[in-house]
């Protein structure tokens, strides 16, 4: 099978890779680029564990062909913390014990950040609908929703103080 050379930007870095025509972005991230934070839960766009942001839009990387991201920008969970400093969403997930097994967590964090980037002050209902495509079989969602609401509050306060 002939490979396809793709040049793209991932978490702000220029990246070049060769992929198969039927290869998903998720498989490229995990298997070629070593970015294993994005998980494969279902592979059919139902669980959201593979969530990434593609040109500013939240998408399931299992339903994107790697060849499609030529010249585009991709943001993954690996780009969320600044060095050793966790993003407030990550800190709040730990504080609220919003994870157990952790498989869904990267997807929830990427999806929640995408919500807060658009809407810094969401209602609980808005959080729940935005995250309806992220499945968690451990926590029952309440702790996740509380962590997102709390992180949103902290981010707003930090912005107001600045």
């Amino acid at each position, binding site marked *: 099978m002939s490979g396809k050379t793709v040049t793209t930007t991932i978490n702000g870095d220029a990246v070049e890779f060769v992929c198969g025509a039927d290869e*998903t972005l998720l498989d490229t991230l995990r298997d070629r680029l070593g970015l294993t934070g994005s998980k494969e839960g279902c592979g059919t766009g139902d669980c959201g564990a593979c969530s990434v942001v593609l040109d500013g839009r939240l998408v399931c990387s299992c339903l994107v062909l790697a060849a499609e991201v030529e010249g585009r920008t991709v943001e993954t969970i690996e780009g969320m913390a600044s060095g050793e400093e966790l993003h407030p969403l990550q800190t709040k997930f730990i504080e609220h014990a919003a994870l157990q097994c952790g498989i869904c967590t990267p997807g929830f964090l990427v999806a929640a950040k995408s919500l807060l980037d658009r809407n810094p002050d969401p209602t609980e209902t808005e959080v729940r609908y935005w995250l309806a495509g992220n499945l968690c079989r451990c926590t029952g969602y309440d702790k996740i929703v509380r962590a997102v609401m709390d992180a949103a509050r902290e981010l707003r306060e930090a912005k107001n103080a600045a």
Partner: protein
Amino acid sequence: MRYESPGTVADAVAMLAAEAGIAKVLAGGTDLLVQTRSGMVEPDLVVDLKRIPGMLDIQAEDGGFRIGAGVSCAALGEHDELKAMWPGVVEAANLIGSTQVQGRATMTGNLCNASPAADSVPAMIAAGATVRIEGPNGDRDIAVEDLAAGPGKTTLEKGEMVTSVFLPGRPANSGDAYLRFIPRTEMDIAVVGAAVSLTLDDAGACTAARVSLGAVAPRALLVEDAAKALIGTKVDDDAMEKLAAACSAAASPIDDKRGTVAFRVDVAGVLARRACGIALSRARS
């Protein structure tokens, strides 16, 4: 499988027409990639239309809007003028899947996937939307209701692709709405879907109406008897009762795990009536 991302419709059509094996058009991929990954479809060629100029644009045209085949449902929901003109169509498109799916899924894909339960399709049919088809023999416009041929099948000829959806402009005092029944609040497939679009005159009488049902037949239905029940009336209880009866009469669903025949027939009338109520209040406001 080969992947191509041509820069013009002419190139895309030439590739689709020349392929001896199975050729598929890729818009948002939320159906196609699920099908290819499960082995349900094994394409020899996938043609990504998103690099073709115009495919990601929503453009004003003749008082209405032309929506490129690659426009995501999320982008539709962010377009204030489109939402103001066709709130029912945008709401229907925004019901499809999760936030992640919304970021990729397109109305054109929803239509060409030809699921009888596609949410945006009844809303487009009620709106009187057309699609532009381009192919080896030039282009043609057809009504949305004429595109699906049955579950998973379309009337597209070899080499043809849908390049845009056109939502026409509307007179004053018009409104549309789409409702679906699902047993959950989100992330589900319609058991029944119903869309109504109507226009009133200055005295509040209905001068034009279109009614469409999803998930109650092999493809979405345009229910002309239901529209006739409204036209010429003030859309009062009696007219809405007749609309509901016409929709239940038109429904010819199957029994499956999502719902029984009896349930779907009944709910088709109930939902059409409720959607009509919303369309009416929008037309009056």
